[in-house]
């Protein structure tokens, strides 16, 4: 459980990438679905609307024609003198009737033929002639699907309902004479409201071809229905008439205008509406048209989605790859080879790095602090340097006006680290006081320098330090110097503290040992200048005996004076500083010979004079050496070559540059001096070394070559053979 939890918690970068990709994919999918849905609905709505439009068009046109028919019969009803007469009684009215019928006929582009039958007579009239009813039925207008009997019944029908006879073939001499086409639809309208006659309108197929016809590719059937019958239709595909009628009736019953129906196993969209005239118009289109449209155009959508998603996918993949590579690299840098894709470990690694860097900075700082204190106490700094050095070490001496030196000693158990920490904490508590410590290994003391602004607060700190020391150490001794204001008097302050410390035998250790309580004259008597002058002369002459003699003079002089140990030390320190100041261009590092801490270790006066002599001797040697070096370029070249022969880049140019002369001068002077060209000398050095290595070590020839400064071992082998007479291998073998 834990492991899996751990694994799950272990957030691999790939998990993250996968999560992002999944989200993107979901977004795309949902976008795609939404678009597709919208598209589907739009196409469907268009499909429905197109069908509605078709139906509306058909219905509007046909209804307006039917309205005209209605108006005709209404008018005929009003004109009773020409629509209600018996031909044998008032034949002249027939002429008027024919004229009227002619007017209607001329004006119409709907019906091809118009008849009128007065129910109380046995004649039918058209715009040209009268027709005896039987002659009309038998010869004039013979219908294919309705028998003459039925037609006669319809003509005399008094129910007041419109009758529509389905489109059928019409024969007869009337057809041959007047009608152009053979298939006709017949509408029989009662002359309402009195219903004394029937007007018959014959519509030819051309009209319906134009109104109901549609292109084959539309796969649409258009119908006009009446009274449970299909009156006229134009079909592009076969369908079951009965089923269509039933479905239409169903739709009408629920007052639905449009709906999907299944007829004969096929799916269609049926749009139907009943008109004012009582005719029902419907249009039937196969759903395949809609489906095909969806199919054909959905590829466009898919293509679009694809086009959008491909760049997105590429972007995601490349981004993820970049990110994972980075993560891996970061982990490699942090040495996390195992979980190299875990970005959590990056964070922890960086945290670690930061912490360690912080620590090292702190250590660095502490180190610098210690270094500063040590140098401060040796009065290494001049006034202008001190503030900068302090700042570099974390001390702000600008606000400081006082300082003193504290020496602590403890015969304790060696738990110095803890004590120091406590002490430093005490110092830190007082924010106007700063301080740091160095450990004096030789004397086993801890040296603290405290910086502060006012004595009061510093005293408090001192007190606290003392209390702390006493609490935590077995035998604790603390010696404090005077307060000083001049930052160049660091050494002096140390010596004061040292003197106070040395006084521990005489004073009460349960209290701080103060220099001020030592009493005694604090003035330092300076040595007369002539002694210093003589010493300098002796050093310049380079004669050791003279130096010793002068040092002896100085010591005698000092012995004669009324010097305390402290003042003597101070004077001594100053003297040495002055000397070094004088000869500082020699490049001597004083620290090798003398530091202020040594003063406290001197047992007798001889120690002091020894130190002085030693210092002078060093100065003299360095002077000689420098001069010697300056005069002897060749020696310098040799020494340089001897030191750097292993560097493959060492060549005459580099050497000349080091010596500060031109290669030509180098070659000439060296040859004059040593009777060999510098390059040959270098080769000799290298070869000798190579021999030594071949003899004394088991290094490979290649490694030897590298060691003596030849990168290319072939070159080395050639040179070696030329110089030695044998190949390196042979030489080695010869020596074994």
């Amino acid at each position, binding site marked *: 459980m834990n492991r899996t939890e751990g694994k799950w918690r272990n957030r691999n970068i790939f998990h993250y990438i996968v999560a992002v990709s999944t989200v993107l994919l979901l977004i795309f999918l949902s976008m795609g679905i939404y678009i597709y849905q919208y598209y589907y609905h739009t196409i469907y709505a268009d499909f429905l609307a197109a069908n509605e439009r078709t139906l509306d068009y058909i219905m509007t046109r046909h209804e307006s024609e039917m309205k005209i028919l209605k108006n005709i019969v209404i008018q005929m009803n009003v004109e009773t003198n020409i629509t209600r007469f018996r*031909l044998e009684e008032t034949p*002249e009215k027939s*002429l008027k009737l024919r004229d009227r019928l002619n007017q209607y006929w001329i004006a119409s582009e709907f019906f091809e033929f118009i008849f009128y039958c007065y129910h109380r007579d046995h004649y039918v009239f058209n715009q040209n*002639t009268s027709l005896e009813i039987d002659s009309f039925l038998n*010869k*004039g207008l013979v219908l294919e699907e309705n028998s003459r009997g039925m037609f006669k019944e319809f003509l005399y029908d008094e129910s007041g309902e419109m009758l529509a006879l389905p489109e059928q073939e019409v024969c007869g001499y009337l057809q041959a004479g007047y009608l152009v086409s053979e298939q006709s639809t017949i509408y029989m309208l009662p002359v309402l409201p009195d219903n004394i006659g029937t007007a018959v309108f014959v519509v030819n197929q051309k009209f319906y071809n134009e109104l109901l016809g549609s292109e084959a590719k539309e796969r649409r059937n258009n119908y006009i229905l009446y009274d449970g019958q299909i009156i006229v239709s134009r079909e592009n595909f076969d369908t079951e008439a009965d089923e269509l009628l039933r479905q239409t009736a169903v739709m009408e019953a629920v007052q639905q205008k449009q709906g999907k129906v299944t007829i004969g196993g096929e799916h269609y969209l049926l749009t139907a509406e009943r008109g004012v005239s009582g005719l029902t118009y419907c249009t039937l289109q196969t759903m395949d048209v809609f489906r095909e449209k969806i199919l054909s155009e959905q590829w466009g959508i898919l293509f679009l989605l694809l086009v959008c998603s491909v760049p997105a996918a590429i972007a995601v993949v490349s981004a993820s790859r970049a990110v994972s590579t980075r993560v891996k690299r970061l982990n490699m840098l942090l040495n996390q080879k195992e979980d190299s894709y875990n970005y959590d470990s990056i964070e922890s690694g960086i945290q670690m790095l930061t912490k360690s860097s912080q620590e090292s900075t702190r250590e660095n700082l502490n180190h610098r602090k210690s270094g500063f204190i040590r140098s401060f106490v040796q009065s290494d700094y001049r006034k202008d340097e001190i503030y900068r050095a302090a700042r570099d070490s974390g001390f702000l001496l600008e606000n400081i006006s006082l300082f003193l030196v504290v020496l602590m000693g403890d015969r304790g158990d060696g738990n110095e680290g803890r004590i120091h920490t406590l002490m430093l904490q005490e110092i830190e508590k007082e924010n106007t006081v700063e301080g740091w410590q160095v450990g004096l290994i030789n004397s086993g003391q801890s040296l603290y320098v405290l910086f502060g602004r006012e004595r009061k607060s510093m005293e408090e700190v001192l007190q606290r330090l003392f209390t702390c020391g006493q609490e935590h150490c077995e035998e604790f001794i603390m010696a404090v110097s005077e307060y000083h204001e001049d930052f160049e008097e660091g050494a002096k302050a140390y010596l004061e503290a040292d003197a106070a410390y040395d006084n521990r035998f005489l004073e009460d250790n349960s209290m701080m040992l103060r220099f001020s309580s030592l009493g005694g004259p604090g003035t330092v008597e300076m040595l007369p200048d002539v002694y210093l002058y003589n010493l300098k002369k002796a050093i310049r002459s380079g004669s050791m005996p003279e130096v010793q003699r002068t040092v002896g003079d100085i010591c005698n002089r000092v012995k004669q004076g009324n010097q305390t140990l402290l003042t003597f030390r101070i004077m001594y320190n100053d003297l040495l500083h002055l000397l070094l100041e004088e000869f500082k261009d020699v490049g001597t590092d004083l620290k090798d010979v003398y530091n202020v801490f040594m003063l406290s270790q001197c047992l007798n006066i001889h120690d002091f004079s020894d130190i002085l002599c030693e210092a002078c001797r060093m100065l003299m040697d360095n002077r000689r050496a420098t001069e010697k070096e300056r005069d002897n370029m060749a020696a310098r070249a040799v020494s340089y070559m001897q030191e750097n022969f292993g560097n493959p880049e060492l060549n005459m140019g580099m050497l000349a540059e080091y010596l500060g002369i031109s290669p030509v001068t180098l070659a000439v002077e060296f040859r004059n001096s040593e009777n060999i060209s510098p390059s040959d000398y270098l080769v000799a050095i290298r070869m000798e070394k190579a021999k030594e290595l071949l003899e004394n070590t088991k290094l490979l020839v290649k490694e030897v070559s590298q060691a003596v400064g030849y990168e290319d071992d072939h070159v080395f082998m050639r040179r070696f053979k030329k110089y030695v007479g044998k190949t390196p291998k042979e030489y080695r073998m010869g020596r074994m």
Partner: protein
Amino acid sequence: MKKKVIAVVLVLSLILCGLTGCHSADSSVPSSSNQETSGQAAGESFNETGYPIVNEPLTLKVMFAIRDTDVLTEPDTMPVIRALEEKTGIHLEWEVVKSSDWSTKLNLMWASGEYPDILLHPSGAVEKEEFGVEQHLLIPLEEMIEQYMPVYTERIAGEDEDPTTSLIASDGHTYSIGYLFAQDISVEQHFFINQEWLDALNLKTPETMDELTDTLRAFKNGDPNGNGQPDEVPLQMGLNAAGYGIRWLLPMFGIPLDSGSRWIYIDDDKNVQLAPVQDGFRQCMEWLHVLYEEGLTDPEFISQDKNTVDTKLKSDNVGMFVCWRLEAMGYSDGVEKNATLFVPPSPEGTKVSCYRYLETASPGASITCTNEHVPESLRLLDAMLETETMFSLYFGAEGSGAEGKGWEYDNNGMINVTNDNTADVKDYLDCNALFFAPGNYISSTYNLPSQRIEKIEYCDIYEEAGIVQKYSDKYLNYVPLTAEQRDSTQLIATDIDNAVWENAANFVSKGVTDESWDAFVKLFADMGVEEKYVQVYQGALDQMKLD
């Protein structure tokens, strides 16, 4: 900048088009005299006589009218046409136009400024007054016919009367070659009576009006068809039923009229008379009223039209009727079985006067003003009129009788037409072809079918009986009226027609009283018919100098 240039260019081109249009319209109306001179300057390859007509290939454009119902092959693929082209050396480019489109196409053609050379239009009208006299789009031909159309000229000369006078325009020029398929007849309407019924009732052919009326009564009451039903229709005619209407009954009362709608006629004294105000008209109305009252007419007499009457004639319950002829009319189940021709009686003091049918040519072919080969064109038309070519163009190639087409010579050198109208697609021009066969010519060339002979016999009988008008009313078609006169007389003619039918129905159904008759006559006086109509025609007729 570019748009400006384009706009300017467009405007300029529009202006140019307009100018050229105007110009071409203008240039399409040259004076006839120019055309005559250019026409006579025929090409060098032209042969004035003999074939081929031209030595170098010549192409002429022909605009050709056909009936709507015709289904013809492309004329230049027809064997008869090919033969013609080979013979004459003239190639024809045909533009075939259906007659319902003809007038539209013709007008468009005139408007376009690009005319064909020849118009071949027995099936489509080309108004000579408008296109010839007024606009000079057609050229006058009379001076060239004799020179270049010997066949045509000879055929005209062989007739008793010049059938091409009908082609003369008001300016005296002839703008077309004639189309005439003569039947050698002089009377349109003939009267028939049911001989079976006469025999059944043992009656003789009535010779007076009273006898006729009694005969009709006998038909009605005597059950001459012996079926026990009073279903006999003694007089089967209509009121306004064209040829089956009173216009063809009025000759009995001395008023000769054709089956059209003009109510004036030319009496034997060369006077133009208004028919509806004549005594004969009144007598006719009165007689018809008697018949109507007694139920001796078809009950639908007043309302039925030509087609309805025609249907009734196709069954056989008819006593008396008027028609063109019996054969080949579809009456085989009807009146053809039992009717015979008879010379109708007339009231006392009146002579029967039947409309004289003039066989005159109607325009068949015309030549446009842009034709540059007029002599060649005329010779070509003449070649079309040569007997064998003419019959081939009309009926199909000689000897193609097995396919239901064509013609052949019989043993007497007379032509028998073997075309029985059964061919579905015709590779001859059919009755759209230029056909000039006046009466004497046709009867000496062509074996007329029996129905034609029947009709000719009827005409002979009526001529012998002297019941045909002397001067045909048809001359009224040819009287020289000015355009103004034509328009105004047209309007009055319509008014007269309407007035006649309105009142005639009443007269027949209700009878004629003096008052109603006077009122009727006054109608025409009020319309100013005498001055505006009758006299106008009279004046024009007088100019014609009928012999």
